């Protein structure tokens, strides 16, 4: 039997879908028995959500006032202590998991396997490197725990319908006070979250201004899509950084991805390689985005986008 501990990501109110994707990855390990741990100040709602994920055996909760915000330096010693009973410790390759899991790995004296795309054996995994230009099969030492982040875009969320037992647990470790949460400025958006949106409309530098991004928003709202962007658009200040898709931004896998005025640098393409259908709208017919697009339309986005929005309204 392989015991897997998945670290739940949540905001205190709701479980992040990345958790069910980590569970999906864990189920591909031979003989996996999967527990989820939820750390927080008060987590009963989140824990019930986690207990619904199949085939989770058990949900552990660690409720402490210090756990109100996901501070890696505070969470890591608790996760490392819980890891004693497990062969694998998995977290998502989101900002939360990327911050926390290497700290856990170091406390356990092991290296981390980052961004698992597939499980190839008990200690063998595939992962992308060089912005997805190469896929490497890596092997973690067979005699030590595996601490890993799961590339969430490579997995469909595990099914629900479960009702795993929820157990409250105490972890007796001293917690540091050297790192303190101050505030979170979440982007105000009623649009679907990039990680879970089935459709995403993304704009690039060719939009040429913050004002012009309005047409991206309008198209997105017309079809119920999330909004993404290229690094160039973010660097130019046209749109908020959390919308950036690519190697150093979000890695996503929507059913439909519409890239507008995005040339398609490899660093961007690595963020969308698992998308269902890629649509490219660009005036440059030589743009690399067309090499990966399922549907390409060469032309002036300032004409095409309003016309498309009208046609889909």
């Amino acid at each position: 039997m392989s015991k897997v501990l998945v670290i739940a990501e949540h905001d205190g109110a709701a479980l992040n879908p990345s958790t069910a994707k980590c569970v999906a990855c864990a189920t591909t390990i031979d003989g996996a028995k999967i527990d989820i741990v939820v750390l927080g100040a008060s987590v009963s709602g989140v824990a019930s959500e986690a207990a619904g994920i199949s085939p989770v055996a058990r949900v552990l909760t660690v409720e402490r006032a210090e756990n109100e915000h996901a501070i890696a330096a505070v969470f890591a010693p608790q996760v490392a202590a819980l890891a004693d009973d497990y062969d694998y410790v998995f977290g998502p390759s989101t900002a939360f998991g990327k911050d926390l899991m290497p700290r856990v790995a170091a406390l356990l004296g092991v290296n981390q396997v980052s961004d698992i795309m597939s499980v190839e054996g008990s200690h063998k995994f595939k992962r992308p490197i060089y912005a997805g230009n190469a896929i490497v099969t890596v092997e973690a030492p067979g005699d030590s725990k595996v601490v890993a982040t799961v590339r969430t875009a490579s997995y469909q969320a595990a099914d629900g319908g479960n009702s795993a037992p929820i157990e409250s647990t105490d972890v007796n470790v001293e917690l540091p006070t050297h790192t303190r949460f101050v505030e979170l400025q979440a982007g105000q958006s009623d649009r679907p979250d990039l990680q879970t949106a089935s459709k995403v409309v993304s704009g690039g530098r060719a939009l040429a201004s913050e004002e012009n991004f309005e047409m991206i928003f309008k198209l997105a709202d017309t079809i119920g899509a999330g909004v993404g962007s290229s690094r160039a658009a973010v660097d130019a200040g046209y749109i908020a950084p959390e919308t950036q898709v690519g190697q150093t931004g979000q890695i996503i896998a929507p059913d439909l991805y519409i890239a507008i005025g995005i040339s398609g640098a490899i660093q961007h393409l690595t963020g969308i390689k698992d998308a269902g259908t890629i649509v490219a709208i660009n005036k440059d017919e030589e743009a690399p985005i067309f090499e990966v697009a399922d549907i390409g339309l060469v032309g002036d986005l300032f004409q095409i986008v309003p016309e498309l929005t009208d046609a889909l309204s």
Partner: protein
Amino acid sequence: MDKILVGLKRVVDYNVRVQVKSDGSGVETDGVKMSINPFDEIALEEALRIRERGDASEVIVVSIGTAEAQQQLRTGLAMGADRAILVETSDAIDALSGARVFKEIVDREGADMVILGKQAIDDDNSQTGQMLAAIWGRPQATFASEVVLDGDKAKVTREVDVGLETIEIDLPAVITVDLRLNEPRYVKLPDIMKAKKKPLDQIPLGDLGVTPGPAVNAVEFAPPEARQRGITVDDVAGLVSALKDKGLV
């Protein structure tokens, strides 16, 4: 604050389209342009600005690798670092061992802050900074887009998936930097000349008492599955009908 350490990793240049070797043993690096990991340049720029504001007295750039990494360290010195340390090894260094090396240098130098890139663009691991903070027992502020120093504390704004998170950390601490923190300066010719005279210490890895491993070993490299170019439509009507055919709108 006295000393800031900055890590500079020698990586395949950002603009190179990396190719997997035909025998799957690795990626082609022969004759390929090598540069400082772009995130590390941002880390160095931030350290230099802190020193230039008078909030630190010395910026030390550190690399781990073969003698060839001197090139990147010299570039760091030309950007304005005061001195450089090359921890020499011909072995590939895993993230945890890299973190242990930095911890040794932190102890030797009595550093107050370590600024690193949030990830290297070769292995895309994003581990070393967090691991260093763990074994040092100090705060980590990852994916920083703003750093505001306040005596022995710092307020750091971090790029997270839903927006921007601000945390306050006590120093000493580890900061890993994101793209939007600053724009690194260009190196001017006279600075390159000056950099040649700046001290660059070489320390064999063995002298630090760090033995690499146990690593997560690469077994095989393969190119990614390529997506196929699809259809081209002539106009919006064609696009809409193609989307409808696929049941997407």
